[in-house]
């Protein structure tokens, strides 16, 4: 958390300030008394907001998606926990290179104009129908939930109402996530890391439901992968959308096959 988030009532018009010190190594410094220096009432509240946004209980439908895992299992590309780890890492790498730029840009300028441009760009960038549909369903669900839950940020609801009228928009997940986090006052580094977290969370959760790994094994795996995931956050964060690219084409091809599966549990 950083010190600029004094208020949850972050106006949509207000650009993220230049003084954004999210990269400051001081942010986790502990005061001699053992209390974090950022312990202000606003920051405490922001912590609850962050947790809620990252909680799998938030009804955005993340549980319906396996990020290509189900197709990869049925194609016999993945057959055990070791392959799962590799798969999760590739999903994260691809998410970092392809989607973090959209999360970042939407978070830094959480306004309608930027967001609409990002949404149209991502619609053209997600050329894989399966992941495009997954992104649209999670994005529209997240915006609906956020507009209802975070009623103290009226711009969220206003924006959603205005956007629903327009028929040219798709509500892709990454820009919606960046926008929502930006409006509730979460800084851009935390937002990008959070996006990687929910991606990992959903892959791991899908793996347990596909019986690839037990719940305890899944937790161990999630913790192990966190190290790699953090490396990827460092590598791919703060990039402009013009640099967005796929880094795991095989994954994309396999995920695109999801529609061909005869029996399936997930929608992507």
């Amino acid at each position, binding site marked *: 958390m950083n010190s600029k988030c004094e208020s949850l009532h972050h106006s949509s018009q207000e650009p993220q300030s230049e003084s954004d010190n999210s990269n400051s190594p001081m942010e986790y410094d502990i005061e001699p008394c053992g209390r974090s220096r950022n312990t202000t009432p606003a920051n405490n509240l922001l912590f609850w907001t962050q947790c809620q946004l990252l909680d799998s209980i938030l009804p955005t439908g993340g549980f319906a998606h396996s990020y290509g895992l189900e197709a990869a299992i049925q*194609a016999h590309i993945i057959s055990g926990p070791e392959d799962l780890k*590799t798969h999760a890492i590739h999903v994260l*790498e691809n998410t970092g290179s392809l989607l973090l730029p959209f999360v970042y840009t939407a978070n830094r300028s959480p306004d309608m104009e930027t967001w609409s441009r990002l949404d149209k760009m991502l619609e053209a960038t997600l050329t894989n*129908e399966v992941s495009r549909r997954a992104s649209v369903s999670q994005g529209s669900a997240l915006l609906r939930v956020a507009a209802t839950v975070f009623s103290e940020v009226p711009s969220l609801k206003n924006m959603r109402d205005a956007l629903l009228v327009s028929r040219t928009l798709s509500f892709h997940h990454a820009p919606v996530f960046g926008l929502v986090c930006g409006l509730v006052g979460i800084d851009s580094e935390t937002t990008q890391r959070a996006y990687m977290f929910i991606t990992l969370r959903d892959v791991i959760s899908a793996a347990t439901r596909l019986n690839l790994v037990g719940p305890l094994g899944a937790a161990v795996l999630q913790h192990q992968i966190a190290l790699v995931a953090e490396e990827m956050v460092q*590598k791919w964060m703060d990039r402009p959308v013009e640099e967005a*690219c796929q880094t795991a084409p095989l994954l994309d091809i396999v995920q*695109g096959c999801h529609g061909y599966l005869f029996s399936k549990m997930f929608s992507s």
Partner: protein
Amino acid sequence: METGIVVVEKVAGKSTVTRCFCKCPLKLIIPTKVGFPNTDAVWIYTLSYGGGLVSGDSICCAITVGDGCTTVLTTQASTKVYKSVGSKCSEQFLEARVGGSALLAVIPDPVTCFSTARYSQKQVFRVTSDSSLLIVDWLTSGRHENGEKWDFEFYKSTNNIYLEGDRPLFLDSVLLEQGSCSSIAERMQDYQVIAMVILMGPQLKHLQTQVQGEVKKIMSTQFYAPGMKRKSEHCQIKPALIASCSAFGPKSVGVVVRIAAMTTESVYTFLRHQLASMEPLLGASPYC
């Protein structure tokens, strides 16, 4: 600064090259007799001196396909990208304008990057709502028979299609870089070829539906849910060729097919078979 410029326009009712310029390291060859004599299509072969790109080569080509014209852009063999010297990258840029009711087919052989090679390619297509486009963009793992599998340093390929000026219709970039987190070979598993085919526009509408159906048919036998009865043992190993189709754009104006395969020949066979019905439009069947 362009190393190649081609303009194709209708002259006396026939697609005709009205401007052609090229300079080292690019050579353009425009034979007049490809396929049936009565087909209205211009075939352009892009060649490079020495059969490939040496480190630091930069090719920049602009092509304009006028209203109602048909143009094919192809190669005679795979584009080799030789070992890099220092951190120098080999580059190719293509900027194509495709007019109304025109068709551009970009059907090269694959790019093959040698070990340590660095290669970057960007193709930008500007189309109108009734232009047609066939793009094949593909890459092999290197000289894999010699044991060079995904051994290059850097590969980036961008294909962007813009509609009527600046409206993004299809934006795609693939980046393969030897990484800190995983090597390219690790990400590709046993697959040696990655290919992408884009079919777009009214002249290819029929082909789009046909390819979507065929790919679905090929792939539906390749997936088995755990516990499902398997027809034979071979179903337990991963497929030698994986393909998936997706529609894109408003009103599903285009279809993209992505392919991963274990051999180059299997992709040639796939392309030859799927694109065979282009023959009447182009005067010859692609990849034959």
